[in-house]
């Protein structure tokens, strides 16, 4: 037992001096001010993005048109945003559920692949009657994503193995397995391209009858509702909050900490698997080697910006979907490189993330020597 008098008092390191700038840790922050700081970060990010687009030769008048009017207020534009955002919502939820219990799931793409693999197995081997085919594909996708995260979850809980490394490396294993299959046993016999054969009509998610928006959007919205209930309304959600915020206290208070982490992490894998299913059954209509590219980091980014809140995940995924869709059209119409589109996305995200600094610290400007 340390003599507690030896520990510095709570306030000793609270104020950090940085030249003439004084930083103080905030004890709490109001909702309005919190939102204002995030909006400020978003504004700065957009301003920098606009400057970059102007420098790249896009006319000022067209920027607003491209990114707002043609993306969100145009039938075709909005439908492509909705299509883009369904898998984004699922991977965002996946990351949010895992992060809530402090499990850094970097393996979303691997679980995504195993979801797609699960769906593909049912599709290409025509398992079960056509009427239940698509449902069975979803179930297998969920199971595939879940199983892929079970080993890192158990290693983390039982042995303390760092999940960042284990989940990250399993991405490569999943990717190489997919390549092995699409260059080998599952290669499309029709065109000999490295992807699986195309899914039949019964193995594709039906359209909703509005442009090309498909049932994947409904699946994503149901997932949002489910995760919202689980995290915000059920007892398990309270457990998740305590386990994530203070596992020591959670254990001492009698919460089944290991089981809570396992179930939350398993759900994370299942949601990533469902995203792989949506991508395969509604967008690619087959298993491909590139279908998961970028979804892992998008999921992490969305969960981070949404502060692991499922409803906020829905909103952020919608915005990011818009950014993706607008990026695609800007790329085509102004022949801008893909790198520029990625750069803009990164800048916006970084600026919003940086606004967290203002949420956490109160900044004072000081005169004189900083005392």
């Amino acid at each position, binding site marked *: *037992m340390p*003599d507690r008098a030896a520990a510095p008092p709570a306030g000793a390191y609270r104020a950090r001096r940085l030249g003439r700038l004084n930083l103080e840790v905030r004890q709490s922050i109001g909702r309005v001010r919190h939102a204002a700081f995030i909006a400020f970060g978003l504004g700065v990010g957009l301003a920098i993005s606009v400057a970059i687009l102007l420098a790249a030769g896009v006319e000022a008048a067209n920027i607003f048109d491209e990114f707002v009017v043609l993306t969100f207020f145009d039938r075709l534009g909005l439908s492509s945003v909705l299509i883009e955002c369904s898998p984004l919502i699922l991977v965002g939820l996946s990351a949010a559920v895992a992060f809530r219990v402090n499990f850094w799931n970097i393996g979303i793409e691997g679980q995504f692949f195993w979801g797609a693999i699960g769906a593909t197995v049912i599709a290409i081997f025509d398992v079960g009657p056509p009427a239940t085919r698509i449902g069975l594909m979803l179930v297998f996708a969920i199971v595939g994503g879940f199983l892929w995260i079970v080993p890192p979850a158990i290693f983390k809980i039982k042995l303390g193995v760092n999940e960042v490394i284990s989940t990250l490396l399993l991405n490569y294993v999943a990717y190489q397995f997919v390549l092995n299959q699409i260059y080998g046993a599952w290669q499309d016999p029709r065109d000999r391209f490295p992807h699986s054969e195309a899914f039949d009509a019964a193995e594709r998610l039906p359209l909703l009858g509005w442009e090309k928006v498909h049932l994947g959007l409904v699946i994503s919205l149901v997932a949002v509702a489910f995760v919202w209930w689980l995290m915000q*309304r059920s007892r398990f959600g309270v457990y998740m909050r305590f386990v994530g915020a*203070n596992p020591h206290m959670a254990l001492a208070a*009698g919460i089944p900490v290991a089981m809570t982490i396992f179930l939350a992490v398993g759900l994370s894998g299942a949601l990533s698997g469902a995203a792989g299913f949506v991508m395969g059954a509604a967008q690619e209509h087959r298993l491909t080697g590139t279908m998961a590219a970028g979804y892992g980091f998008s999921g992490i980014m969305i969960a981070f910006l949404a502060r692991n809140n499922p409803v906020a995940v829905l909103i952020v995924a919608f915005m990011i979907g818009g950014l993706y869709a607008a990026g695609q059209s800007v790329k085509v119409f102004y022949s801008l490189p893909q790198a520029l589109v990625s750069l803009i996305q990164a800048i916006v995200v970084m600026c919003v993330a940086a606004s967290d600094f203002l949420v956490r610290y109160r900044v004072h400007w000081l005169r004189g020597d900083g005392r």
Partner: protein
Amino acid sequence: MTVALEMSDVSKEFDGNRALDSACFRAEYGRVQALLGENGAGKSSLMNVVCGLYAPDAGRIAVDGVPVSIDGPAHARALGIGMVHQHFKLVRPFTVAENVALANRLGGRWTDELARVAETVERYCGELGFELDPASRIDSISVAERQRVEIVKVLMSGARILILDEPTAVLTDDEADRLLAVVRGLAGRGAAVVLITHKLREVHDFADRVTIMRAGRTVADEDPKTLDDRRMTELMVGSAPRSAVAARSGGGRARLEIADLSAARDDGVAALAGVTLAVQEGEIYGVAGVGGNGQTELAEVLMGVRPALHGTVSLDGEDRTAAHPGERRKGGLGTVPSDRYLYGLTADLSVAENFGLAGLAAGRYGSWWVASARMRGDTEAAIADFEIQGGGPATRSRLLSGGNAQKLVLARELSGGAGILVAHSPTRGLDVRACAAVQSQLLEARDRGAAVLLISEDLDEVLDLSDRVGVLNRGRIVGEFARPADRHAVGRLMVGHA
């Protein structure tokens, strides 16, 4: 002999608690000055003032006879003051030489510098009679060796005033004797050594003078030869007026039984070495002792967050030694941990969530759809009952003051009608009013028939509240007393060499 360090009327207050109250202290070159006192007497605070970690609110400090105002640790170092803290400040994956080099840059190319630092370390070790390999990694050497690294580090920085904060607390007897012999040798070569301790034997055997502190004040500065153990203990523990808590004879049925319990600290050092005690219904059993004798580990083993290496813990006759904390709670256990924001509360979550968690886990608020309105209502009732001020159910618990946070923990732990309560330092850091409120809750729980185990380093509290007192010394209960316990007899067992 010349005076190295002289402090007069030094005061320091933390959030309304007076850690130092006009304390005085002096140390001379060529001597070992012991600084003796209970936990919280102000020893460490006083020395943290000397090494520039705390700025005193009032008082004068003179080094080598020159009045100084110590600005920070770097200034203290420049003045020749070096402290070996109780918690070593070493970087574990690095080698001994690298750690020493981090604190004492010799300049030049890094690899050459490391070689020269290693040479210097070996030279110091030769002079001091230490065995230490500069190339071994910190995490591969023993606690005693790590301490030697700290001492070499401080000496290399040119310290002539050397402060050792309870250096023998982590050592075996042999190691302690060897270390203290080295410390004597340092004084023999002219250094002023300050030895913070609460072991009387060390004061008698190794110190030239002793300063005794109690409640932030200096109560004696004497030659230890003029003080016998009894007198020293009296000065240390004082004589508080006996309070008028009605004694209770336990109902006879033992509800919490601990038999031959052993456990280790995180670093593997043995902390409990066969604790045996039983708490009956309707009594408070107080565990007295100087901090660091196994209190934390005892509380943690009982909570179920630290494994027992040996022995058993039974609740109402059922063996729960290896049970999950949730099962223990179902068995009627409530716990008030000493570190409120480690095991007691989750700072970033609301008062209602922190309060309701126990009830939630016990299934009182449903599982599919949490009855948050009912939880909020119960929280409001608890806030009123326990007079928790400074926030409502939605307030983040981080914003509560220490006393109110503690009342919140107690409210939760007692809400399920816990029949067995383990409270570790429940009033630490609380003001007088909050302290009295917490203590009266413990007494009420006892009067309702609960078995209360009170583990506290505050002797006054243990003596005031306990129906029986056990003294924990070096991981064992070395004596038991029925109310009224003899304060000085308890004090002697606390600081004695068990």
